[in-house]
């Protein structure tokens, strides 16, 4: 910028007194000009300077216009103006609509709104620009002609891809303590396996390094990583336990008994558990306090998932309903009847828009949970026992010992799976690994890590969950995350509610007005009939007088409203008359009208 602006110094003005300091680009240009006009021979310095002036003027004009900038070399910019940003990219980063202009707004407020709109638009544009620079692309799998992708086996894929990716397809044969449930840590680096018969193992699954392995000598219902890979919770036969990554028991929480399923809400540091005694409990893992204990009164609870966008817990019940819960309310926020039989599994996608459920009626249903409307319903002959959604929206459904993966279940009607794989015994737990194209399946014979191209989000955010973070970075992140731990009271169905204007209802406004004035301006004094003597205040006559007054009031209001109507009608007629008059005036150009 500095260079171009310097070049703009008006030479015409300078020429008269002093020559401008020599610049290398001037020389270059002069040389070129000389070459060009060499044939003419008689090109004097005067014309040259004139040319200069014109050029400078033109350049200045160009700069005023703001586009079509020229480089120092004199060449025009082949791509003038800011680069184009595609619409869908802009849509992706759209956070709010432009504020509507309200007539007769205060000028300061108007100014402030305009500025804030400007800033948010700039932020949106910049974010959309940076989106271009993301380094990784998502994976994919395409069959040849007449080849179904679901017929491609895991071996074929692992043969076709590079060594590191191929090493992500593996089987762990753990037939002794199965079947297994599993959980991936939030960064996707660590895997936690919990066998039904008490076996727990933490593995850094990419390097295959075993972090700890213990047997709790008790049946295990579920396992869950807490906020980092340093701690995990295990729902054992009786109580809930918390272990660290070396397998040392940190806590035994006796307030949480008979826990069957768990969910960890990472931004709230809450561990939500459901139990066989139909209790939904929330544990704040940062301070170790029970936040809420809700008796759902719906029997044994073993179907659970969370909505990652608003931290609402979804529970599936044996009567076919799915209920939504927050820790702030003793009652369910929403009850949806989803299936004819019992609900077997529930999953919510990353964007918090779609919910997928499967039931004993062998149906697989997709719901829009913003509007609580069913979108799609599929019939699976075997029925899905276990569902999991990946970051990019792939759905895996386990039917017996077969794992099927579907693509685009909510947008297009799906007829056949994207991928399928048979494991040794019945599937017990299933999870997509975050930020990897991997699906972990826990079953009776151990654990299988499958390759599902296109499952994981290719570009992670380093400040949120970084798979490659060092110990120092993790510590830093932990402190930051704890500092901005969201209070459980802020869990609501609409997470953006906190940022919206709380508009007072008209009732509230009226109340405030009454408070300020000290009396109710709209209140009408109640008519109390005067007591009259000589028997004229009998119950009947009092009633008659009351009715008389009421009738008068009514007549008044009716009269008023009819007058208003007349007025409006009159105005309308006058307006119409004027329009007719205006239109009847013939203009000289009317003859050209068709």
């Amino acid at each position: 910028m500095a260079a171009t602006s310097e070049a703009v110094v008006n030479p015409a003005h300078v020429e008269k007194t002093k020559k401008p300091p020599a610049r290398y680009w001037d020389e270059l240009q002069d040389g070129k000009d000389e070459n060009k006009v060499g044939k003419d021979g008689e090109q004097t310095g005067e014309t040259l300077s004139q040319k200069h002036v014109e050029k400078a003027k033109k350049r200045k004009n160009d700069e005023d216009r703001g586009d079509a900038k020229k480089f120092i070399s004199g060449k025009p910019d082949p791509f003038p103006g800011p680069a184009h940003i595609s619409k869908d990219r802009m849509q992706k980063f759209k956070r709010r609509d432009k504020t509507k202009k309200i007539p007769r707004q205060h000028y300061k407020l108007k100014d402030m709104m305009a500025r804030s709109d400007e800033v948010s638009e700039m932020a949106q544009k910049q974010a959309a620009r940076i989106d271009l620079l993301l380094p990784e692309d998502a994976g994919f799998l395409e069959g040849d002609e007449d080849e179904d992708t679901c017929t491609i086996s895991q071996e074929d894929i692992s043969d076709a891809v590079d060594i590191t990716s191929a090493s992500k397809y593996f089987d762990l044969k753990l037939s002794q303590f199965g079947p297994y449930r599993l959980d991936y840590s939030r960064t996707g680096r660590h895997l936690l396996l919990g066998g039904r018969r008490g076996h727990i193992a933490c593995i850094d699954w990419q390097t295959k390094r075993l972090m700890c392995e213990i047997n709790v000598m008790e049946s295990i219902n579920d396992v869950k990583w807490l906020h980092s890979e340093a701690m995990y919770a295990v729902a054992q036969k009786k109580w809930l336990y918390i272990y660290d990554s070396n397998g040392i028991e940190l806590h035994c929480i006796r307030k949480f008994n008979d826990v069957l399923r768990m969910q960890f809400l990472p931004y709230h540091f809450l561990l939500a558990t459901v139990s066989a005694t139909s209790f939904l409990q929330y544990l704040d893992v940062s301070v170790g306090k029970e936040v809420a204990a809700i008796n759902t009164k719906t029997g044994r609870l073993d179907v659970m998932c969370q909505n990652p966008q608003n931290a609402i817990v979804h529970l599936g019940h044996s009567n076919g309903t799915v209920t939504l819960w927050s820790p702030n309310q003793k009652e369910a926020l929403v009850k949806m009847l989803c299936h004819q039989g019992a609900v077997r599994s529930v999953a919510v996608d990353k964007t918090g828009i779609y919910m997928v459920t499967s039931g004993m009626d062998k149906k697989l249903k997709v719901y829009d949970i913003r509007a609580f409307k069913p979108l799609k319903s599929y019939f699976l002959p075997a029925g899905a026992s276990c569902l999991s959604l990946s970051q990019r929206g792939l759905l895996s459904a386990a039917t017996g010992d077969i794992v099927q993966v579907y693509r685009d279940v909510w947008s297009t009607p799906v007829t056949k799976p994207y991928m399928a794989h048979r494991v040794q015994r019945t599937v017990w737990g299933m999870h997509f690994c975050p930020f990897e194209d991997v699906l972990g399946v826990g079953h009776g014979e151990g654990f299988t890590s499958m390759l599902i191209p296109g499952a994981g989000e290719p570009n992670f955010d380093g400040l949120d969950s970084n798979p490659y973070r060092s110990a120092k970075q993790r510590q830093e992140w932990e402190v930051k995350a704890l500092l901005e731990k969201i209070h459980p009271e802020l869990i609501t169905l609409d997470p953006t509610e906190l940022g919206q204007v709380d508009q007072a209802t008209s009732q509230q406004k009226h109340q405030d007005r009454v408070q300020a004035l000290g009396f109710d301006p709209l209140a009408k004094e109640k008519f109390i009939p005067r007591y009259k003597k000589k028997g004229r205040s009998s119950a009947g006559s009092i009633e008659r007088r009351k009715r008389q007054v009421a009738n008068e009031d009514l007549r008044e209001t009716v009269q008023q409203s009819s007058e208003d109507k007349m007025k409006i009608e009159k105005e309308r007629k006058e307006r119409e008359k004027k329009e007719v008059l205006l239109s009847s005036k013939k203009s000289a150009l009317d003859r050209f009208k068709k």
Partner: protein
Amino acid sequence: MKVKLLSRNPDDYVRETKLDIQRVPRNYDPSLHPFEVSREYTRALNATKLERVFAKPFLASLDGHRDGVNCLAKHTTNLSTLLSGSCDGEVKVWNLTKRECVRTLQAHEGFVRGMVVRHCGTSFFTVGDDKTIKQWKIEAPAYGEEEEPLNTILGKTVFTGLDHHRKEGVFATCGQQVDVWDEQRSSPIRSFTWGVDSFSAVRFNPVETELLASCASDRSIVLYDMREPAPLKKVIMTMRSNTVCWNPMEAYYFTCSNEDYNLYTYDMRHLEKPITVHMDHVSAVLDLDYSPTGKEFVSASFDKTIRIFPKDGGHSREVYHTKRMQHVICIKWSADNKYILSGSDEMNIRLWKANAAEKLGVLAPRERQAANYSRKLKEKYQHHPQIKRIANHRHLPKIIYHQTREQRVMKEARRKKERNVRKHSRPGTVPVVSEKEKHVVTVVK
């Protein structure tokens, strides 16, 4: 079959050597950052709490005067120099960076009433109870030289205030009348009176440099043009104003500190009604000074507190007090917009931060970024009840706390009575008079 799997090269995500900084790849996709609003709110709440934790406004106390500090003057070209005059006629020159007195001179007998530094910064003027105007050099006399004023003018009456023209060698004093003096002459070039017996303050307009404003003891504020023989106009209020100060950026606004515990900002062009009434003090307001940005001003009060008001806000954003500070007589906002200087009855000059929680000194870029971010967050969520409560809470001395409450009760009672009177009288006979209109008696032209 065509297949691609996510396969990241760790070298792209991990730093090469320990000497490098850590790599932090970013993805701003909103779906990867859930709970945007609640997290921001939590951050804003934390930032607000931290602001209150770090709010330590008191920096230093400059002691040395042997009587109450009656007036302060900022040096016009030097940030670190401050002049102060006390009730025993002593003037001290202070070095603020070293926080020490560099020069003391006995300027007057009796009070030093006013003091101002000439725009060039080489000399200053003082007026005192001994009916003299004296001009002094800023530099201390050399060894062996006697401390003598450059120039002394003997006036007929006591002077109560003084201000110097922005550019020319002209200054104005007030006392029985407002006088405009040429530095070269010993008699005023112009004298203004408008049927009042005394004035308490006079100020030159910083932009329209020929204009003057003064506060008179007949409860009026009078505006003058130096070039004209007669005053321009005046507004009479219900109570007397003590001082007046022009907004340095929007110089058609001026603010006056009033005896009725309030400050009033007027538009010079429309004196019928003040633009804003600034309430919060619980005793007479004695002095005020604008910040150089013109967005805020600071006021000193007889209730032993200093308050900072936004220029268009009805209530103060900050209140400063200490156990030992008595009635604050004079106040100045430093020219770098960072400090506030107050002179009080108990002979001390106090140095305060203008922004109580601000970190002084050079900020690292990341520090500055973090500070800016948290400032923006606080601004964004300032209306949320919990944040508002924390941000607005100030500890007040017991007396002031109770007086504030008492005033509120009194005001409420008055309003209630008025409301009842209005309710029970014929419509239109008891009109609603706004707070702004209440305090203006009349405007005379």
